[in-house]
């Protein structure tokens, strides 16, 4: 155990918990901090419903979504041995998007099971990508190439749907760009258990992710079946990404950027990298979501857009600072 790294993880976890609660007081109506606890007593008060029924569940959702997308990114970067990988390359996002559009635009009667269908859309697309790239095992470059082709085919489908249903596209734009608006405890409940399981598995399997940083030949000669390792880690990553997408839509960038920032701060040992990315991802999405709901009065901006606007320059700054 490296005390220094452990300390970083503990401190960032404390920051995350503090922010989750504190940011629940900020919004169109600012609530004094001391009412966080006092409002608990009077459950009929407005501050109670604003904090505990509206903002807290949304913040918690932001945190777990941020966590799972970041961890998904870390795992896929390890599997692909490519620092530019993110959940999108496996086809999860485009599969989920296409399914979301089909349901919302063409088959609105299926809306009650939208989440499940979106999850399946993402998951099945990913299975297809892995199946067509399989040849005596998983080769990262083949997965990436298969992912690009499948993404472009599905992308065409997405464009086509948007054109055919151009009159209705307005209503799904928010979902397409990823949004946490109006999410309640129900949304949190629907994914919480799966995400916690996924995150725990990711932490447990962190030694596997470490092994993959050696060359394929070394991994095999140390007695590991590299295909099984790649499959296990990919499955965890894809589950995490497709579950979150099914509830909040497409939030890009975080799965790419958080692993990088985390690596700069805590190094590439996955034993620390996975927990730290998890916490940092939570903080980042929570912060971004708070900005997206407060920056313009009475207007909700999609969190995915804010993420890209803030994340891009910040990432460039970090890269420059490092070199």
């Amino acid at each position: 155990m490296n005390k220094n790294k452990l300390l970083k993880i503990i401190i960032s976890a404390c920051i995350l918990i503090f922010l989750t609660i504190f940011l629940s007081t900020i919004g169109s109506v600012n609530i004094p901090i001391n009412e966080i606890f006092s409002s608990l007593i009077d459950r009929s008060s407005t501050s109670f419903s604003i904090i505990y029924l509206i903002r807290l569940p949304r913040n918690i959702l932001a945190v777990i979504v941020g966590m799972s997308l970041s961890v998904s990114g870390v795992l896929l970067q390890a599997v692909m041995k490519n620092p530019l990988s993110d959940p999108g390359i496996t086809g999860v996002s485009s599969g989920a998007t296409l399914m979301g559009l089909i349901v919302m635009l063409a088959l609105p009667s299926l809306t009650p099971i939208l989440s499940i269908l979106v999850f399946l859309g993402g998951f099945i697309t990913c299975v297809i990508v892995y199946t067509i790239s399989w040849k005596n095992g998983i080769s990262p470059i083949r997965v990436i190439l298969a992912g690009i082709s499948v993404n472009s085919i599905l992308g065409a489908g997405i464009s086509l749907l948007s054109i055919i249903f151009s009159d209705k596209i307005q209503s799904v734009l928010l979902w397409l760009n990823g949004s946490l608006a109006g999410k309640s405890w129900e949304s949190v409940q629907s994914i919480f258990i799966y995400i916690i399981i996924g995150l725990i598995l990711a932490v447990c399997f962190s030694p596997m992710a470490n092994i993959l940083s050696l060359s394929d030949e070394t991994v095999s000669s140390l007695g590991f079946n590299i295909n099984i390792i790649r499959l296990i880690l990919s499955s965890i990553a894809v589950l995490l990404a497709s579950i979150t997408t099914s509830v909040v839509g497409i939030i890009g960038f975080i799965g790419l950027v958080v692993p990088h920032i985390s690596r700069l701060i805590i190094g590439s040992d996955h034993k620390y990298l996975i927990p730290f990315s998890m916490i940092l991802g939570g903080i980042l999405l929570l912060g971004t979501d708070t900005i997206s709901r407060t920056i313009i009065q009475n207007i909700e901006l999609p969190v995915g857009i804010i993420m890209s606007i803030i994340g891009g320059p910040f990432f460039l700054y970090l890269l420059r600072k490092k070199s």
Partner: protein
Amino acid sequence: MIEIKNLKINYDKIPIIKNLSLLIKKKEIVSIIGPNGCGKSTLLKSIAKLINPISGYILLDGSPLSSFSEKSLSKTLAILSQHNTSPEDITVKQLVTYGRSPHKNWFEQYSKKDYEVISWAILHTNISNIQEKKLSNLSGGERQRVWIAMCLCQKPDILLLDEPTTYLDIGHQLELLTLIRELNKRLGITIIMVLHDINQAARFSNHIIMMKDGNIIADDTPDKTITKENIKNLYNIECHISKDPISNSKYVYPLDLSI
């Protein structure tokens, strides 16, 4: 004992090893020599099951290599590859520790014995003073010794070494080859290594395999294989051969390229 019969290996449909048969006895030190690109590394990798042959077979103590799982093979056979990659910020100790994984299940804690093996490997490869350093901050020779330490942690019966002395200065070359001989003598580890220095091969091995264009052109004791004709055949050079005054093994002085 390793028995290779009619081995054929292709890379992208191009035959590299065409029809190779070979017998390697237990507890020997075997050196493979031959010009660049003749297939030495390919042969080693196929013995380590990192490449699958098109046809032919390899028997390890009588059982076909294909019947071994990665795990069971990694407990008896370790390979030091010619090129190795590792993450930038891994420490020497962490990397060496990976060498114990063949003997562990996932999530299994390392026991006292594992740590003893790790210390033993670190001690014998002479890297105790750098064990807390990051691998990326080491010299080429130091790095090579770390990789060898990792192989030793596997506690193999058969050790395959692809150009183990590259990057090492002459002192460390000698030290490493002496260590290899010690491992062979004391622990009875079978050593199969690729060397480019014929004189070191002559001095440190019981057996020399000469390879050219994916075929074996000579396979015998150093005294019998190291001849002017064979050296000329392999490297296209003229040479003078005499005896090393200390070890009494054959010693090759290259003279000039053959015309």
